[in-house]
């Protein structure tokens, strides 16, 4: 059951993405082809699942900077497990996700129980996990080959890979959990006013820790996807991915201040980032130009979102926070 208001929000993001696709279609003759979309679909699973988890973390007003490194570590573990220890793919994937879960739980426990800002804790984990990735692999890229590639190869007759389907499922389940469960409601409430949640007789800590743990798990899954797409495990995988994930979430309209967000719209954010990257490459833009344009789109999207909420009459919009004195947020009498 989708509420009309939500549907409008999804539709708006869909239209923006379609607009972007059409724009590149006009700029490049080759863009509007099946191949483009297949490539797109098979490139995004890792980012999509991590961004889905990141949405929940931002909703509680936290942040996780370690996801790229954790992905790198988990990907490396997949390589070591398959190549050096000859484990089955499923076993390797399971171990990798367990390690991701452990890293996320560590982030959550330290930041929530000791009251240290998640920014700092996960910044530490960014270094720890990357270092461990190098240690696990001896800083070597390991070629794995067909043992992992199946996950990222298009299913015959369907054009998309199992990884993409899993990512889609994660997005849908993520949205349902967010909007239809007690856990999801607590996340929104914690992000809006944690004090009020606590004084309502609810302990916010378990939910907060769970969110970081979940993102760790999804980073592990992302690591499996990433390794599978490359066919090899690379300790350098996922450098800077945390920023792409946060960008996708923010483009999707999730508030960095917490309390508001949507996993579905995060998925559109992922699509927009991936489409930009693919489209710009196709029209021959250089790497530096791609980065400039992507950066501008991120900022533009946030301004647009703030403006939209401003128009919708929200008294708590980002724009008002930015451009007026604090007391003007007071509802008018």
């Amino acid at each position, binding site marked *: 059951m989708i509420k009309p208001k939500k549907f409008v929000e999804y539709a708006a993001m869909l239209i923006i993405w379609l607009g972007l696709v059409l724009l590149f279609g006009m700029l490049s003759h080759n863009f509007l082809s099946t191949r483009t979309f297949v490539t797109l679909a098979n490139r995004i699973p890792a980012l999509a699942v991590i961004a889905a988890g990141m949405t929940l973390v931002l909703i509680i007003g936290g942040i996780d900077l370690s996801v790229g490194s954790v992905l790198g570590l988990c990907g490396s573990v997949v390589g070591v497990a398959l190549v050096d220890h000859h484990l089955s793919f499923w076993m390797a994937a399971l171990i990798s996700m367990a390690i991701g879960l452990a890293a996320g739980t560590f982030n959550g426990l330290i930041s929530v129980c000791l009251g240290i800002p998640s920014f700092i804790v996960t910044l530490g984990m960014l270094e720890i996990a990357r270092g461990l990735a190098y240690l696990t692999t001896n800083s070597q890229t390991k070629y794995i080959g067909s043992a992992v590639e199946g996950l990222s190869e298009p299913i015959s007759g369907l054009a998309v890979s199992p990884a993409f389907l899993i990512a889609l499922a994660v997005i849908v389940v993520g949205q349902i959990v967010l909007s239809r469960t007690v856990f999801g*409601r607590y996340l929104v409430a914690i992000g809006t006013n944690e004090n009020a949640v606590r*004084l*309502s007789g609810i302990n916010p800590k378990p939910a907060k820790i769970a969110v970081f743990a979940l993102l760790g798990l999804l980073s592990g899954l992302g690591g499996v996807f990433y390794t599978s797409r490359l066919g090899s495990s690379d300790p350098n995988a996922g450098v800077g991915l945390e920023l792409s994930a946060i960008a996708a979430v923010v483009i999707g309209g999730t508030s960095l201040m917490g309390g508001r967000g949507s996993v579905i719209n995060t998925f559109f954010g992922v699509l927009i980032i991936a489409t930009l990257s693919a489209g710009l490459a196709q029209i021959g833009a250089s790497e530096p130009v791609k980065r400039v344009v992507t950066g501008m789109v991120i900022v533009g999207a946030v301004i647009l979102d703030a403006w939209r909420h401003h128009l919708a009459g929200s*008294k708590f919009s980002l724009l008002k926070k930015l451009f007026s004195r604090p*007391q003007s947020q007071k509802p008018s*009498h």
Partner: protein
Amino acid sequence: MSAVPLLRVTGLEKSYNVPVLSDFNFELQCGEVHALVGSNGAGKSTFARILSGLTSPDGGEMQFNGRSYAPTSKRDAEHAGVIMVLQELNVIGTLSIAENIFLNRLPQRGGMIRYADLNEKAHQALTRVGLGELDPATPAGQLGVGHQQLIEIAGALSQNCHLLILDEPTAALTDPEIEQLFDNIRKLQAEGVGIIYVSHRMDEIRRIANRITVLRDGRHIATHNVDEITPTELIREMAGHDLPNSKPAGEKSLGPVALTVRNLRAGNRVNDVSFEVRQGEILGIAGLIGSGRTETLRAIFGADPKASGEILLQGRPVVIRSPVDAVRAGIGLIPEDRKQDGLLLSQPIRVNTTLGTLERHAGSGGWLDSDAEVKTSDIFCQQLQVRCASIEQPVGELSGGNQQKVVIARWLARDCGVLLFDEPTRGIDVAAKDTIYQLLRGLARDGKALVVVSSELIELMSLSDRIIVMCEGRIAAEFSASEWTQEKITQAAFSGFMTEKGASSS
């Protein structure tokens, strides 16, 4: 008081989605204290905001000192000499008192703040509001709310000020501080400054104001000289209809003891507090601000840690280490600051009402049952007469009174046997207050045990079956309904300051 008025407002209009001010007329003389009264939503705050340049009107005309006046920003208004002290505190805790007072005009040379000069000027400004003993270099965050409010007023007074707007200036002040404020107001009056005094507190208005203007639904209802109108008449004009008499009816039969607090100590504000409340009883806690009333409630509820002491429910000791424990044991707390501690302002009424009972609104596996949620929220919104467009309206858009009802609704949904109310009617209008009084009495009739902290004595006396008075973290006195008088209670509240300290520290 004649000739050209200091301020003349004619036909002022302002609407957000609905009109908040329509055809509003107002006049203020030099040296006059003019009180603005009206229920929440009457348009007082909007008028004050227009005058101080925070909002611009949709229509109408304003003349200030005989010249057309249309400020476009707060700075603009301050430049013209119109200064507003806001109801909500605007103090930056990490800056010093002096820096707060002179934030927009720090004395400097080449970009460097001249602290000697600044602190000297701040000292003068503080002396003016009777806080001369404070060191201007103290971080403002270390001060209590009352002092912070006075510092804002000191800031206003230290500017070139022809028209001062005070919005509920005494809400956080204790009696001696109020006296100090009134002295200041009289001084300004003598200097010819016009003062607009927005307040719900009739007794204060009668003491300080020359004239009273009543607003209702954004319209000017009447302007009276203060000695020509009684509070009852004023309330009638504000409400538009007679308020039902709120005197409790007869003797009540009380049930067994519901909550016992023994030798509670917490922080440095709660020193050995013991009391008990029976089922069906409303226990009032009176005392000055800072006497430990709020801290006592928070410690019972587990919101702050206890140093020692025992809590018993129905005679059985319970261990309460957190609000989770308290709620599980059947104790609810309606906090003093609903925006900070109670509400999810950006979330709809529905989400706010069911926050404490989500598990009961969910099936197995934690799936929310939205129909059940809507039902609960509808029931309590109706029972509490929450005025709203729908239960999907964000709570932040409601008036203070309706916001408070939403917080109460959350606890009613939870059905706690013991409810702790901290300033349940703070900053809400007369009509909404009355609904809340009825509600509290109804809860007591249903056999719940209520503890109500309030700074308004009249309110406590009309609600409570028994009143305990706190002073410096202890219970200074206890009164039954037949014993108390305002004088006795006030005396008890001050008792700790009258006797010599040290003797009571054993």
